[in-house]
């Protein structure tokens, strides 16, 4: 079977929704790809320090405790959020049979967002990190990002309001809830940890609450929203089914929003206990998502290989489910297990962040971009190669880390084993996982190359058309005179 969609769809005529989204999405997505590269390079520098602790030890700004949060935040705020928001705006315009409201403000909003991320990454590297995980950006960067979100979020709501198609598709539910939930959690967390910090341990509880709501709930809503659009779109069939998708939606926002407080958190027992039971309950959302994929494909998983975007989307759903069950195993592990403080937890959150969310975003970007430009990506073979690099990279990063974390936890539970030996016991796994990091980075270069060439080709097209028009006009003028 040949590729159905992304490379054959667009040959010139674009919908009004696509045209209105063009420049806003160029800004949001190309900036996102830049931060994807920057983030994965910073992460890789952090990883190399496990091979050689003395590597780049001298400059303060390259110490592990700075490059790691800088890399992760570049990934989350630089890549994930702007591309998620860009795809959200496009989906709301497309599904509402309308155009993007406030396209020009969104262009500037996107620029401001990426400037804010730049300020944040530089701030973290220079030692201004707040210390709260996933909220490390210092206040000056947060101010820019929040102002930018105001523009993007309002544009999203206005686009939804002016829709011509009144019937709602499930994706719109997911995306609207996400548009609404992000400013709530982000402002709450920023205000209570940085602007008017609450006292003592309450800060950390707010931080954990934010992290879980961003990584599980927000990523879940947007990522599944995108996948639930792409599956029926690219398979040319109905999503199975509306009610199942709404079931996933409810399980996520009813239970997912209460997860994330680790069991050893120095807080009263009810808080981690609540997180434990809701993590298990949120497992129903995983089952629901898996069922939707399975039923929409009609159990024929080979269909996924018909389009690279489907491959990314299928991988994303699988990661979402596996990462979720890894989380359930983590909370249900025995009282003396410290999996949540081991590499296992890193593996799980990377699977959720990258294996699920970034892969869903790649699926979206590879599908949406050609719709915007009206022409396929210049190097279509690289898209499939990117998938294989990303997929093998994720697996090579996650599986060794998860196994290493389980080994680490087992060794840790044995007080006879010196801690230095526990730490050393994880090094082999860490080293294998950095091969995975290199593969994903290579994939990012392929994406960047395609995006760069696509923008170039698009601009060249415009120039050519403009030139031709001008020539024709000149000729006509010549004839007329």
């Amino acid at each position, binding site marked *: 079977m040949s590729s159905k969609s992304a490379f054959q769809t667009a040959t010139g005529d674009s919908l009004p929704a696509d045209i209105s989204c063009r420049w806003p999405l160029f800004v949001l997505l190309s900036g996102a790809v830049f931060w994807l590269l920057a983030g994965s390079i910073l992460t890789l520098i952090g990883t190399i320090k496990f091979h050689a602790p003395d590597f780049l030890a001298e400059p303060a700004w390259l110490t592990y405790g700075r490059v790691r949060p800088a890399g992760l935040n570049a990934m989350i705020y630089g890549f994930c959020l702007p591309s998620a928001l860009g795809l959200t705006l496009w989906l709301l315009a497309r599904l509402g049979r309308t155009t993007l409201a406030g396209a020009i403000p969104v262009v500037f909003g996107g620029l401001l967002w990426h400037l804010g991320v730049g300020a944040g990454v530089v701030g973290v590297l220079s030692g201004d990190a707040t210390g709260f995980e996933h909220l490390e950006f210092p206040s000056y960067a947060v101010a820019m990002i929040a102002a930018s979100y105001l523009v993007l979020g309002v544009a999203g709501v206005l686009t939804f309001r002016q829709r011509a198609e009144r019937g709602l598709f499930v994706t719109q539910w997911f995306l609207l809830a996400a548009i*609404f939930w992000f400013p709530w959690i982000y402002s709450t967390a920023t205000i209570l940890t940085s602007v008017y910090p609450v006292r003592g341990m309450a800060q950390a509880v707010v931080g954990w609450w934010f992290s879980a709501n961003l990584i599980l709930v927000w990523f879940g809503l947007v990522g599944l929203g995108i996948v639930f659009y792409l599956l029926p779109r690219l398979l040319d069939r109905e999503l199975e089914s509306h009610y199942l998708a709404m079931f996933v939606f409810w399980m996520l926002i009813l239970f997912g*929003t209460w997860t994330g407080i680790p069991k050893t958190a120095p807080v009263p027992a009810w808080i981690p206990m609540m997180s434990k039971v809701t993590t298990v309950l949120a497992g129903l959302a995983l089952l629901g998502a898996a069922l939707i994929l399975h039923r929409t494909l009609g159990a024929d998983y080979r269909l996924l290989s018909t389009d690279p975007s489907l491959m990314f989307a299928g991988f994303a759903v699988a990661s979402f489910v596996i990462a979720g069950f890894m989380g359930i195993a983590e909370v249900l592990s025995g009282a003396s297990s410290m999996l949540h403080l081991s590499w296992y937890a890193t593996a799980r959150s990377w699977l959720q962040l990258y294996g699920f969310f970034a892969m869903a975003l790649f699926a979206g970007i590879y599908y949406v971009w050609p719709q915007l430009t009206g022409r396929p990506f210049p190097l279509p073979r690289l898209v499939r190669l990117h998938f294989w690099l990303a997929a093998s990279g994720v697996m090579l990063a996650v599986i060794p880390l998860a196994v290493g974390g389980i080994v680490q936890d087992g060794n840790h539970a044995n007080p006879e084993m010196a801690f230095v030996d526990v730490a050393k016991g994880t090094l082999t796994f860490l080293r294998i996982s950095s091969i995975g990091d290199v593969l994903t980075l290579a994939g990012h270069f392929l994406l960047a190359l395609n995006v760069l060439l696509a923008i170039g080709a698009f601009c060249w097209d415009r120039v050519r058309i403009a030139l031709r028009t001008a020539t024709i006009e000149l000729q006509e003028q010549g004839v007329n005179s």
Partner: protein
Amino acid sequence: MNYGPLVFLAAFAALAASWFGFVLTPHLQIGHLQQTNTVPSGVSYPVARSGLAQQGLQVYRANGCAYCHSQQVAQTGTLFDLVLTNPGTNQASTVAAIQSINPRLSQPEVLEIIGKVPVHLLTMVSKSTAEAAAKTVNATGANAVPWIVPIGPDIQRGWGSRRTVAEDFLFDYPVLPGSQRIGPDLSNVGVRQPDPGWHLRHLYAPASVVPGSTMPPYPFLFEKKKVGRVPSPSALPLSGIATVEDGYEVIPKPEALALAEYLVSLQAYAPLFNAPLSVALGKPTSPTETNSISISGGDKAPSDISMP
């Protein structure tokens, strides 16, 4: 019928519920904590860290120490020792009672240990066992008290004598409990390593004080310079693999001194109502001492618990 607005409202309520539950309620509970008192001594806890240590917390934050080090000691349960504090006067029946609760002790052993009160007669037994045994021993006119011993892998590892609670972080900003144990837990690193000089040498060249350490060095917290007419008194006494070439010395920058002071201030072992434990009269049980209590049975010498 249009359910749209209704569903929207329900979704709003679902999201708001988590905000009330996990932001507002914890803020009302934990955010309004006050200084408390240790139990039973009634000493105020915690006391604010020194100004230098607070600066050190900022160095800890800026350099992301919390990405490798947690500050949360887990406690999986609570067991009891039985401690004899007064052998009484009726020696024969006391010895018999002690042998009845711990048959592994021979009569000469019992005679030997009851001369050295306070002494642990039983270790790591359940609450009911300890209380029943106390009753048996006390019936002879001796005095034995159940001794609270928090347990868990972290505690056995010597990372703390009890679990970490919210009070331990009361005056800190930001609060950095960490999420990873690439390095050891630091809740009580100030008890394990009370010497700031050790921390300075460790920060400069980790492997020189902890062989095999995987921690990266932090040379940017120090200044390496030519020795002046007289060597600086604050220069690090380096040895082994960390020596610098002749004529040079390594001076800690103010950030390093602050960080070391903060690390020394990390001592979260006070016995509190919400994290009870028994401590030896006179000196607080340090985590390492707790660690030395063996699980093997009641035949343990009372080396670390004694009246001053």
